[in-house]
């Protein structure tokens, strides 16, 4: 086939393909394969991570965007899963070979442009609500080591604390117990994680430099999330 014949043919195919794809693809979606690539890094990470957890997060791009009513599901030829979101927009991400091979999608019932999609690292929440200060420091250090593993720009950063994230003001109670003393840490309105838009949560920042290395941090109400703080 001569090039003069070939070029219009190719351009026509391109045009038809673009139009066909636009018509065929209704709704909002994110490639499962692309999300998988980002999420599997934590699963394969070989250094200590027992105090950490990884989620897939939808973060509103603007503070005015709500996560209320937002649903996410994994849709493939043979795989259909609902992925419930917590109030911070996080969900447990299933690492499924079948979904990968089927080139499945993460389907969203909102405009995808309203959200950022990314892995979210946080510290594991304890069921009893009691955290040793040393354990929080160790957890933050694990998080920092992981961030350095995936992002060389974290090389010079340091752990400075942990943010306890609550949904309601009444739940944002964090006590520091050191010997016989008991101190209530102040809560403020804020974002759950650095970089998130808006300040729709009640947060308590437990900064290591403000408190003794020993002691216990007690949260009577389970926090939504524990976010490591880096400077």
């Amino acid at each position, binding site marked *: 086939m001569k090039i003069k014949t070939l*070029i219009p043919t190719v351009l026509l195919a*391109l045009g038809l393909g673009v139009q066909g794809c636009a018509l065929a693809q209704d709704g909002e*979606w994110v490639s499962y394969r692309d999300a998988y690539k980002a999420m599997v890094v934590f699963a394969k990470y070989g250094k200590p991570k027992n105090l950490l957890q990884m989620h897939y997060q939808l973060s509103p791009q603007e503070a005015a965007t709500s996560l209320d009513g937002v649903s996410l599901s994994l849709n493939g030829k043979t795989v259909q899963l609902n992925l419930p979101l917590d109030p911070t927009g996080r969900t447990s991400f299933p690492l499924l070979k079948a979904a*990968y091979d089927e080139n499945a999608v993460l389907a969203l019932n909102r405009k995808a442009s309203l959200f950022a*999609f*990314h892995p979210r690292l946080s510290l594991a929440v304890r069921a009893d609500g009691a955290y040793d200060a040393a354990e929080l420091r160790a957890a933050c250090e694990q998080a920092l080591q992981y961030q350095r593993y995936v992002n060389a720009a974290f090389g010079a950063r340091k752990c400075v604390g942990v943010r306890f994230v609550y949904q309601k003001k009444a739940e944002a109670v964090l006590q520091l117990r050191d010997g016989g003393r008991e101190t209530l840490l102040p809560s403020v309105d804020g974002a759950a994680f650095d970089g998130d838009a808006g300040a729709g949560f009640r947060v308590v920042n437990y900064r290591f430099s403000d408190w003794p290395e020993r002691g216990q941090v007690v949260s009577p109400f389970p926090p939504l999330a524990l976010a490591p703080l880096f400077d």
Partner: protein
Amino acid sequence: MHKLLVLALVGACGAAVAQTPATNPMPDGSRDMYVGLGVQSLPRYDGARHNKTLALPVLQVQWSNGIFVSGLSAGWHLSNSPSWEYGPLLALAPRRDEDGISGGLGGVGDGSGGGAGATSILPGDGGIVPGGPDKLSKSGNPLLGMDVIQRRILYGGFSNYYLTPALRLSNNLLYGAGNGHDGLRLHTALQYMLPNALPHHSFVLSAGVSVVNSAYSNAYFGVSPRENERNRIGAFRAGGGVHDVRLGVRWNWALSPSWMLTSGAQATRLLGDAKDSPLTERPNNWTVSTALAYRF
């Protein structure tokens, strides 16, 4: 971490491109493959005044063991680190004859394209060109009378370091070009990735520089006394050094989970002896391409 979830189709051909797609962790036994077709406009050869338009077949495959094929390149990711990629690399350098370089194969890469090389042999007729030297010198085609440069497999390696998840310093070194199969080329590029600038749209901006040894430079931009006897453009011995600088942009539009429109542009400026060669009609070249690819 959306590092290099960006896919970028290589505007292959040109000075052939050695691409190293980002490491792509996937389930054991899986693969990620793109196949497609498009068009590209690229210089007839490095330093040519005119572009030519060619069909652009597209192929990129990555397997769970780290092996990948990307356009005219193939390699193997040996590192498990998300911040540092390295491994062996093979590239197919296209043929160059009096019509310029031949067509190639697109892959999925960055768009900055580290050039590969090729080796040259005498034409099959032993160098006797109908019409004689005067005809050649007046033809306006500096490649008339030049030795044909055949397709050749180059071998070497790549090493990419992520300064941040969005900023990659990419290096590839390929050896084997030239008459003595000893041409060496190092291409270094800084690539900035915008994987989610808009939903389903991703961009890669890149700036790169190539350094070659004298064997490489002479194979592509030198004119031997024997070649000069045929085309009278002036014998020229090209030395090594900084060969070119490049700016590139790649735009990928995921039309659906399976279909992608990938487009790119690259501007190249030849430097040093490559710029001064009598084969070089102009030092600035550009390449554009677009293709529709299906993801399997």
